[in-house]
């Protein structure tokens, strides 16, 4: 009997990629791959082409089940609204990232007229509206509901704040596309993002699927698509939960526009003289950095990481002007590849800066506090020191043959001896060589263990 076959297709903003797998002995075996530029005006066209190529390449019929993800149109744009920056807003951001969204703006406290105008201009897909514990703040929450209700924003509004005023909030928003989920922070410090995540996924389906031909594809395959980063997030969770040796790992997905950092590890393990302050972050966490990227975001990267890049250029003996010129060239032509050793060096430098900054922003800190009794420690954010493995994926890191770029995530400790970033200490580095992660991720919903096993088997261990 021939093993069952499954196709997986990811419609990205530039390429539509596909793979055909056979399910054998608890893992997927790659039978064929296909790739075509995404047909932006009608996504169904590129999809059909990939599907045909897969069938031709394997000699199988086109009749296999198809799993689909999409990040076309730049993914899911979310504006996060919270009450205080360190509590509800911070959790709203966490929820948006773990739902596979891209946080395009954050707002705290009562929305000002300027912020409302900014939101109307920005036109995100979703406004994730949070604030207040259950039974807590209602004044600011109701005011913001009123302001959003009167605004011209056409975004879908997801209310996940103080439950006690949910009915009144929904009434104030009755002219809008609106839904509600359980409060992301029912009590101070309690993180509850699952319900909001689930609703965001549904909104994604309703809003993003129609138009541009995606609804035709969905009808044809008879299965809902996933936002690509959500599929990858789920896969990361399955890898951590099921693969031996992978309970503590990180993954860096670096592309032209953003750098995503995923970590699967207990955020805080305590100890006698360590106290956690602030939020206890989740086991599985994703952050997205919109200013760290190799092409579309090259100029933003140069701006954000100027100090690091300048000092490295000096060490390499390269003039800043040459790098500056390269940045402008690649930002203007996002498809370009380095053409000589100098340009390769510049790409490597950009990659190093992206990885390092993304890791630092994802990680928490440990600070020494002095008391008359002696010193002890305060941790804030997530502890990444126990990560034993780090995966690099996305164009540049998938192709990388040395551990160097990925290990930038373990950048030298800060000069401030009293406050250290909690970065990985000595992880092994892996490359997602065949760039299979997004494609295996689509299968993780129905085949969690098999997909996780396949993703891990497709990695190549890198040497220093």
């Amino acid at each position, binding site marked *: 009997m021939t093993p069952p076959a499954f196709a997986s297709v990811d419609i990205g903003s530039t390429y539509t990629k596909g793979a055909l797998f056979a399910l054998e002995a608890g893992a997927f075996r790659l039978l064929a791959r296909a790739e075509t530029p995404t047909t932006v005006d009608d996504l169904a066209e590129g999809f059909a082409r990939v599907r045909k190529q897969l069938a031709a390449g394997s000699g199988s019929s086109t009749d296999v089940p198809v799993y689909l993800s999409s990040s076309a149109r730049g993914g899911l744009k979310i504006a996060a609204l919270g009450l*205080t920056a360190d509590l509800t807003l911070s959790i709203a951001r966490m929820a948006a990232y773990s739902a596979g969204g891209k946080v395009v703006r954050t707002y705290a406290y009562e929305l000002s007229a300027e912020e409302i105008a900014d939101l109307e201009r920005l036109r995100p897909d979703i406004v994730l509206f949070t604030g207040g514990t259950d039974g807590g703040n209602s004044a600011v929450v109701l005011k913001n509901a009123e302001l959003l209700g009167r605004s011209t924003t056409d975004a879908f509004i997801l209310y996940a704040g103080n439950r006690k005023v949910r009915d009144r909030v929904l009434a104030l928003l009755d002219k809008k596309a609106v839904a509600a989920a359980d409060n992301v922070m029912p009590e101070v410090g309690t993180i509850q993002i699952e319900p909001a995540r689930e609703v965001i996924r549904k909104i994604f389906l309703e809003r993003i699927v129609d138009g541009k031909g995606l609804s035709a594809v969905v009808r044809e395959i008879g299965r809902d698509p996933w936002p690509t980063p959500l599929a990858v997030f789920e896969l990361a969770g399955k890898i951590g939960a099921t693969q031996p040796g992978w309970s503590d790992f990180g993954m860096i997905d670096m592309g032209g526009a953003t750098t995503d950092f995923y970590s699967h590890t207990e955020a805080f393990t305590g100890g006698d003289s360590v*106290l956690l302050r602030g939020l206890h972050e989740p086991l599985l966490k994703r952050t997205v950095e919109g200013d760290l990227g190799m092409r579309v975001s090259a100029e933003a990267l140069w701006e954000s990481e100027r100090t690091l890049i300048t000092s490295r250029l000096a060490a390499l003996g390269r003039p800043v002007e040459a790098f500056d010129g390269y940045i402008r060239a690649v930002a203007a032509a996002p498809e370009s590849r380095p053409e000589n050793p100098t340009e390769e060096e510049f790409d490597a430098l950009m990659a190093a800066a992206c990885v390092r900054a993304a890791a630092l922003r994802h990680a928490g800190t440990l600070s020494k*506090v002095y008391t008359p009794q002696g010193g002890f420690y305060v941790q804030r954010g997530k502890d990444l020191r126990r990560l034993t493995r780090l995966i690099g994926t996305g164009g540049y890191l998938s192709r990388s043959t040395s551990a160097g770029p990925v290990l930038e995530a373990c950048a030298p400790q800060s000069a401030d001896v009293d406050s250290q970033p909690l970065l990985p200490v000595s992880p092994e580095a892996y490359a997602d060589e065949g760039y299979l992660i997004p494609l295996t991720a689509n299968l993780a919903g129905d085949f969690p263990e098999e997909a996780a096993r396949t993703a891990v088997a497709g990695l190549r261990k890198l040497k220093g």
Partner: protein
Amino acid sequence: MNPTHLVLGVIGADCHSVGNKILDAYFTEAGFHVTNLGVMVSQDEFIDAAVETDAAAILVSSLYGHGEIDCEGLRAKCVERGLDRILLYVGGNLVVGKTPYAEVEKKFLDMGFNRVFGPQVDLAEVVELLRSDIAAAGRK
């Protein structure tokens, strides 16, 4: 009816946790909804929690003798962050050494606290004061 929210914690780098747990249990038993931030709480953490929970009062403890420095500016920060009507109570071993209580009390009242308590306080009295202060402030 929504219970009245209180925010509780031990301020600064102070890690005396026993009294904090007693206060949490006592005020919860008295019918308040207590958000207990535990030990080593910064001014901003007190205020963030009070904003999110719409708390009627913040109960600050300081046991290790550095209360004065740790509490300085808390009232002003509350006002800046929109908590212009919140009640601020403080208690514990507020200063180092044997400063007379009246002097200590005045110091903290001047800093903008509504009530100041020493370590020997009767918590039943505190609950009564809190109820009447909350009523006077026009909160439920």
